[in-house]
């Protein structure tokens, strides 16, 4: 039973809807641009994040296509080894730091205040600062294509892998400034990321509307809080390591300089203490999206809300103790290998709980197969497989075979594309109407979904096999007699299908922005607070502060005869 100290939630939410007519008169292009650049509005910044991430998704995607063309045949000469190494380094760095991180924080920025009935983030100016610093970091990274050569010739970019293992990054092995641009760009984007993470935590803890206890926060917000807390912890070792690297390169330090007694292993530890939780930083928002979309289109409340909260916190906590499963081949003791095998397997338990809870949410529902829901169903299916191949990789003896092979590449693309990008697409179809006032076209959406999902499976299902057959990662070409050629050709074809699907998505956005169906405030008949205001929401989100009495305030409003707060413990 809910406590009865809170008033009936229905009435105040009615007042939340702003009924003042919009200001008339068109603004000039310059005024519009100016308003976006100086904005401190969380919604505009959220959209800027998403736009920025989408732009770099195209850049990173183009790099991926170039990589796949090069690998489609053995001994291909489409890219030189130098260019190939730059492309795979930039592809990884771009997709993780400029695409994944920016899009998820775009979602967080846009949705967290709306979902908790707040008017903005806790620190709007910090929010703007974070975005522009992150954006600047990305430009700095790509400026290395022009400026990274320093005195050593023209055309350069980081070419040490996104993991940048020492001592390859030492000046002896990586002259020029490309590696410096890489290190500095990540420090700079890191500042922005930490700022936003701090902001999201503060917002969720301090800005919730009346009646929204922590255990009534939408799961999306919960997961974003956990995600931001994890970000605060993980970015720090990365920044520290980058600073040490720069000290090595310019101030004569010997942290990672093995020729002067430094430790290559130390870099690997630093990098993965950041790098593994980073995977969870990226995947948790995908869970967050699933936690909203799946209930809405199953027409049921999320199953096991407290368990989902606990599982999110559990995943974040355990994920801090698994980093060395990236290091089973560096020569740790057998006891360390056993420990990290166990800790990695344990992550599977809270993750399994989440999958089961999503299934239970759908169980007994009336599932509507909108494009958004299709993406989230694909997410559950693909995340299941990604999790199972993760279990395989956690078995350290097997990892001695699979580590750094294409099996691993397939596994983590299953997570990054099959789970994260897929969920993000689903989230975009879900919240696009809220952000723009227009529906995305469902027919184009279905084309997008099916082409993308088919392309994904053609690419990444098949990609496991060359790894099993001995093909290592990061190679610009391979021997013709190894039997990897046909498989790689199929993988490349799937990549192109996915590329076409993304272009259809962009076309859908353009078409729908111009002539999409009017969305209305609540096109999906959903239950969280963002659907209580207009689409797009006004600058101040809610005219009066909403008051909620349960996890699904709009359910209570729509079903006064059977409100949630009667049942929530």
């Amino acid at each position, binding site marked *: 039973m809910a406590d009865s100290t809170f008033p009936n939630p229905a009435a105040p939410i009615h007042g939340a809807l702003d009924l003042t007519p919009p200001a008339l008169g068109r603004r000039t292009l310059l005024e519009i641009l100016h308003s976006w650049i100086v904005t401190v509005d969380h919604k505009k910044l959220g959209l800027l994040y998403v736009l920025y991430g989408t732009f770099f998704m195209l850049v990173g995607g183009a790099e991926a296509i170039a990589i796949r063309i090069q690998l489609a045949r053995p001994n291909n000469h489409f890219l030189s080894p130098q260019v190939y190494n730059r492309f795979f380094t930039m592809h990884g760095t771009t997709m993780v730091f400029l695409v994944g991180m920016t899009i998820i924080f775009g979602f967080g920025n846009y949705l967290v205040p709306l979902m908790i009935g707040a008017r903005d983030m806790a620190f709007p100016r910090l929010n703007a600062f974070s975005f522009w610093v992150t954006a600047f970091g990305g430009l700095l990274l790509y400026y290395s294509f022009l400026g990274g050569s320093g005195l050593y010739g023209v055309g350069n970019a980081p070419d040490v892998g996104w993991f940048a293992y020492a001592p390859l990054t030492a000046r002896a092995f990586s002259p020029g400034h490309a590696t410096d641009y890489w290190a500095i760009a990540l420090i700079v984007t890191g500042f922005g990321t930490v700022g936003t993470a701090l902001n999201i935590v503060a917002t969720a803890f301090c800005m919730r509307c009346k009646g929204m206890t922590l255990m009534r926060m939408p799961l999306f917000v919960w997961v974003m809080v956990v995600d931001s807390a994890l970000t605060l912890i993980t970015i720090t070792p990365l920044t520290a390591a980058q600073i040490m690297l720069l000290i090595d390169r310019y101030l004569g330090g010997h942290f990672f300089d093995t020729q002067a007694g430094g430790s290559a292993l130390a870099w690997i530890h630093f990098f993965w203490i950041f790098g593994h939780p980073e995977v969870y930083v990226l995947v948790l928002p995908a869970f967050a999206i699933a936690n909203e979309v799946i209930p809405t289109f199953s027409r049921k409340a999320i*199953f096991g809300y407290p368990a989902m909260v606990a599982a999110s916190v559990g995943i974040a906590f355990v994920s801090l103790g698994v980093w060395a499963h990236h290091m089973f081949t560096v020569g740790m003791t057998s006891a360390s290998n056993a420990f990290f095998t166990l800790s990695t397997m344990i992550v599977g338990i809270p993750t399994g709980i989440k999958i089961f809870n999503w299934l*239970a949410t759908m169980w007994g529902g009336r599932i509507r197969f909108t494009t958004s829901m299709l993406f989230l169903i694909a997410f559950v299916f693909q995340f299941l497989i990604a999790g199972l191949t993760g279990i*395989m990789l956690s078995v350290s003896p097997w990892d001695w075979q699979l580590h750094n092979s294409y099996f691993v590449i397939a596994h983590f693309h299953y997570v990054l594309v099959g789970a994260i990008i897929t969920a993000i697409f689903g989230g975009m179809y879900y919240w696009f109407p809220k952000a723009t006032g227009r529906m995305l076209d469902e027919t184009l959406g279905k084309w997008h979904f099916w082409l993308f999902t088919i392309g994904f499976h053609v690419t990444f299902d098949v990609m496991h096999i060359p790894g099993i057959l001995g093909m290592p990662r990061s190679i610009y070409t391979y021997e013709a007699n190894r039997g*990897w050629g046909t498989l790689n050709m199929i993988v490349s074809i799937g990549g192109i299908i996915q590329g076409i699907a993304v272009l259809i998505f962009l076309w859908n956005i353009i078409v729908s922005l111009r002539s999409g169906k009017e969305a209305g405030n609540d096109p999906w008949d959903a239950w969280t607070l963002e659907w209580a205001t207009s689409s797009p929401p006004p600058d101040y989100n809610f005219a009066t502060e909403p008051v909620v009495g349960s996890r699904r305030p709009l359910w209570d409003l729509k079903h006064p005869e059977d409100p949630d707060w009667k049942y929530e413990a």
Partner: protein
Amino acid sequence: MLRHWLRKTRYGAQAAVLAALGSGVAFASGPQATPSIFAPASTPAAQINSVAYFVLEITGAIFFVVAGLLTYVLIRYRARDTDDNSEPAQIYGSNQVELAWTVIPVLIVVVLFLTTARMIFAIQDAPKPKSALDVTVVGHQFWWEYRYPDLGIVAANELHVPLSSKDSPKPTFLKLLSADVDHSYWVPQLSGKIDLIPNHPNELWIDPLQPGLYYGQCAQFCGVEHAKMLLRVYVDTPEEFAAWVKNQQQPGVQDPSVAAGRRVFETQACMNCHAVRGTAATGRFGPDLTHLMSRDTIASGVAPNTKENLRQWIKDPDSFKPGSLMPAMQLNDEQLDQLTAYLATLK
């Protein structure tokens, strides 16, 4: 292609079954052009193979159960045109159910972990028998150096090891070092990989049970020519291995008919990086060339070791391996011919 792969998988399945039955040699694969991890030819690789099949069975079962449930839910609970406008029954959760799907995965993790831990210790802490051969592997950008400390041999790029067998085990224990950046040693049919990290010596052992040539390659990105840092492991019969050792222990052949070529070698910069035992050339940066012609390939497995390829390699290393650290020495045609003739005598 697929058929080829499936056939290999069947080998693996047999191995798993045999291993599960605890029978002796659970693998019979000889060397293959496609170095599949499911075609083990050495004990550590076979042990990994058996644990891999065990894990595959468990994860496969989980997959079918969960994916089956998902499919069932999607079909059974899809929205239908005949539905009325009401919402389905709202169910908020169940502690018993949550407990059930927490406990079952915990049990699975326990089983998986214990199986894995046993295998970690079995492979990694395997005792080294007295009959073992020691080889030190040094990773370089972008080639492999092999030193046999007990035999006084220094070789490059092609590792020769003796055949092992159940009755007279002759495993090879590799000590792995790096001269520059991180590399990783991976010959899938013989064992898992382990990295070569500067200031951090590692160990790996193999006991190949079928003679022949096993392929692998560097598995840790190490710079521009990481892709062409190929591994070739020759598993020799005892007689072949003894003959190979005997030849490798000899100093370089001194053939007066190629003195001109040797002069090129010793007066140009070649000897700064390369060694030919018994001569003034003692360079250490590049592969030891004392028995260059005993190798089948040059440039770390990139090209067959023919006279034409050797000449082209010296003339323009980038034509085989763009970015390789061997410089083009700008020799004229006559010098190239002389030098190639000299190198061709280093049997």
